[in-house]
């Protein structure tokens, strides 16, 4: 195992404090993977700074010594984005977890990157505000990680993904330069530097302060749960709801396999265990307007073959209807040794056809594939259940994943809707981009990171 030169360790400790430079193998083990546990690698060290100036000094030191860095938030990423080679140092943001400004008057907040997504909404709540992007991992993932992945969530159907809400950034480049990009209250030049940084997966620099827009909490929320015998029917209901011009806050589908996993777990939400799909439809906004929208959605579900449509009257009932969706990953984690959460998007109308084909792929490779997804956005999450110690099965997972990606791309979609490319999907990039696009991406990275010291080996295939 590589080790950090002693003098460098000392200098790093001088910057952040000795407690916050981790070099013991035991402690580094906790950083060997992110949420995609199929890839593991122990970093050279982990450094946990608490401020922009500490990050800048740490980066200066590491870049002068030619050591590459990998930013890391909570490590919930699902594409191996925070995976660090044994020669790289992880810069963790867990100590940078202060909400620096909550400016209710202007509906904005400035936070350090290690702030947990859900905490921001909690803190904003007494002011009648919340932070809209709500990844299903929101109780654990960080705003910095969300910025890097341009994360989405169930309610992004109506409200849009992270990039819509990030208005300004303080970033530190590999060389330690501190740059201010954008800002809700000012404009600097015409190029959208904030826009191109969001979604850069830690490859351009590290975000050390994030300014975000907050939204007023909707006055009222109404939630429906529609049960279907066939998942294609649930997909059709989604298309008709959207096609008639309704804009629900969320439209989420869980398939039969997932329903059964959840119902068999402590999270059971009372979904019929023999159902083959459940569709959660949520509307929010002004009380008066919701009733009519809900009625239209109910009739769309019925016309698409729903066997039952439930609605929630209280907040507890609402939680219950959401249970099957929100606890899906947790419940599935219990029934399989390993779980590969895939992520791809297709134009919404292609959902029924693509879902059928995914199930055929599962049958062909004899793999259990469970689907939980953001249906309104056409953002699929086929979850492949497998056992990593079975090398034959591992190979099948790889082949099935590739087929699913090709299928989604052929249907007019793409290889990732929200989890990012990271380490995992580099080899799929040529499915959606030609050489010139990838070269341009590399050149743009080089503008931000001329020495290629940020998050090496991610996003772009090695030969670009």
């Amino acid at each position, binding site marked *: 195992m590589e080790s950090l030169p002693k003098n460098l360790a000392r200098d790093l400790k001088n910057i952040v404090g000795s407690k916050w430079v981790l070099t013991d193998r035991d402690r580094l083990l906790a950083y060997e993977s992110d949420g995609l546990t199929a890839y593991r690698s122990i970093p050279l060290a982990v450094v946990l700074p608490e401020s922009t100036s500490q990050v800048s000094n740490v980066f200066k030191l590491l870049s002068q010594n030619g050591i590459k860095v990998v930013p890391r938030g909570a490590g919930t990423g699902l594409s191996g984005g925070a995976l660090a080679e044994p020669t790289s140092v992880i810069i963790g943001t867990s100590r940078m977890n202060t909400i620096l400004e909550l*400016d209710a*008057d*202007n*509906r*904005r907040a400035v936070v350090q990157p290690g702030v947990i997504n859900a905490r921001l909404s909690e803190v904003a709540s007494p002011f*009648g505000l919340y932070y809209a992007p709500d990844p299903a991992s929101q109780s654990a993932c960080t705003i910095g990680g969300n910025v890097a*992945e*341009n994360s*989405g969530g169930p309610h992004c159907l109506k409200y*849009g*993904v992270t990039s*819509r809400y990030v208005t300004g950034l303080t970033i530190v480049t590999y060389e330690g330069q501190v*740059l201010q990009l954008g800002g809700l*209250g*000012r*404009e*600097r*030049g*015409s*190029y*959208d*530097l904030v*826009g*191109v940084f969001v*979604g850069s997966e830690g*490859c351009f620099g590290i975000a050390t302060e994030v300014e975000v827009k907050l*939204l*007023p909490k*909707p006055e009222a929320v109404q939630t429906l749960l529609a049960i279907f015998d066939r998942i294609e029917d649930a997909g059709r209901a989604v298309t008709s709801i*959207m*096609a008639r011009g*309704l804009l629900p806050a969320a439209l989420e589908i869980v398939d039969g396999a997932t329903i059964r996993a959840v119902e068999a777990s402590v999270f059971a939400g009372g979904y019929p265990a023999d159902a083959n799909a459940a569709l959660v439809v949520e509307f929010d*906004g*002004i009380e008066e*307007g919701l009733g009519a*929208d809900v009625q239209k959605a109910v009739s769309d579900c019925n016309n698409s073959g729903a066997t039952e449509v439930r609605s929630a009257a209280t907040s507890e009932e609402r939680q219950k209807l959401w249970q099957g969706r929100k606890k899906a990953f947790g419940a599935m984690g219990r029934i399989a040794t390993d779980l590969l959460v895939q992520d791809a*998007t297709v*134009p*919404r*109308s292609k959902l029924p056809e693509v879902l059928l084909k995914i199930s055929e792929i599962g049958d062909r490779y004899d793999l259990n594939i469970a689907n939980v997804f953001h249906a309104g956005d*056409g*953002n699929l999450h086929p979850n492949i259940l497998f056992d990593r110690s079975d090398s034959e099965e591992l190979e099948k997972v790889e082949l099935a994943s590739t087929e699913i990606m090709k299928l989604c791309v052929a249907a*007019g*979609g793409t*290889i*990732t*809707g*929200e*989890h*990012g*490319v990271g380490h995992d*999907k580099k080899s799929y*990039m040529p499915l*959606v981009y030609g050489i*010139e*696009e990838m070269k*341009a991406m590399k050149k*743009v990275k080089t*503008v931000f990171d001329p020495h290629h010291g940020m998050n090496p080996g991610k996003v*772009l295939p090695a030969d670009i």
Partner: protein
Amino acid sequence: MDTSLLREILPVKGQVLEHFGETDWSFFSRQPRAVLFPHSQEEITSVLSLANENNWNCMPAGNGTWLEGCMNTDREVNLIVSMSKMNNILVHEPDNLFVELEAGVTLEQLQVTLRPSKQWLPLDPPGKNSSTMGAIIATSSCGALQTGFGRPRDHVLGATLITGDGKTLKLGGKTVKNVAGFDLLKLLSGSWGRFGVITKLIMRLHPLPEADRTLLFSSNQAHSGTSLAHDIMHTPATLQSISILSPGLREELDSENTGVAVRILESEAAVDQVEALILERTDLLPCKRLNGSESEAFFESLKNTDTDSDVVIRIKCLPSIMKNLIHQIEALQSLVADDSLGGLQFLAHYESGILLVLIDKLKLDDDWLAQSAETLKEFRDTVEQQGGSLTLLFAPEALLKEVTPWGSLDELETLCAGLEKVFDPNQILSRSSAHRSAE
């Protein structure tokens, strides 16, 4: 310059315009050597390749109505490559709420096509109905609706860009969620043609709202324009725009007081309730109500408020400091010609923190340039001290050069120049960089 080479690439009559006659493609008193009207992406690629070989400076364009925007001062241009003949709507998938189009399609043409499907693109850039979609994205032009629906960048799902060195890049896609690779698509909004020619766009659509209602308020002793806007912004409902108008800016409002226009785009069932919530916040201050096409027409005319102004300044600030800044724009009065009717006007999109200051007619006495530049720079300092920024969007070129559109970009200069070189290594599109403001 031997334009016969261009005629080989663009053989159809009218594709290479060299003699301008009635048509005016000059900008800041500079006339391009030729204006080109390609019919295909291949033609654009060939033109740009040829331009690279010969070191000819090019500028992409749409219909050429806003070539005198702030980013084009100092821009050396031999050839203008106009997208106006590439104006087909290629695919409209109502079920998937997207449209794919050539960049020369005008916003008006698009909205007319979408209407039967009860869909629209909620963008309201200032300027004429002949604005092309490519230009709206390239200039990141937007109006009051940005409050509720976002800026142009939030509506673009995908695009094709032919870079300065003639490479074709297909960016983004057809789906709303897409995080495959770095988001270069975002760079096109606000690129002002310095990265390449945007040839195609895939735009996200929205359902047309059932109800369109505008409430017009006039300020009074108890409620200033900004305090009204502030109260309305904090209504617990999503409002599509909250604009503050200087007295007399629009005839629908009384000429003595600052006005506030609020637009509600909602379902029929919700619109009254939203109105009631707003009125509750404004202590039931009387207001004028415009519905449906009247509401639409009001905002249509509002978006063209600045079209005759000599100078347009865009201040970006947090809403909470807008009140101060509105008072302080009085400092710009010295720029206004004595006989100017409208004088100094403003239009603010409160929640978006946009304050547009319009100078109808500049005072052009002997040392107007030095004085105006000094006043504007001082005012920029005043704005920046309060955390905001001042962009000189439109002005006589001499003034733009003195004041510069943005002021200094300091440490971001290197990044911006680096990005230009990525897409345009020989700098045929950005010979005078947009960002070397102090040069």
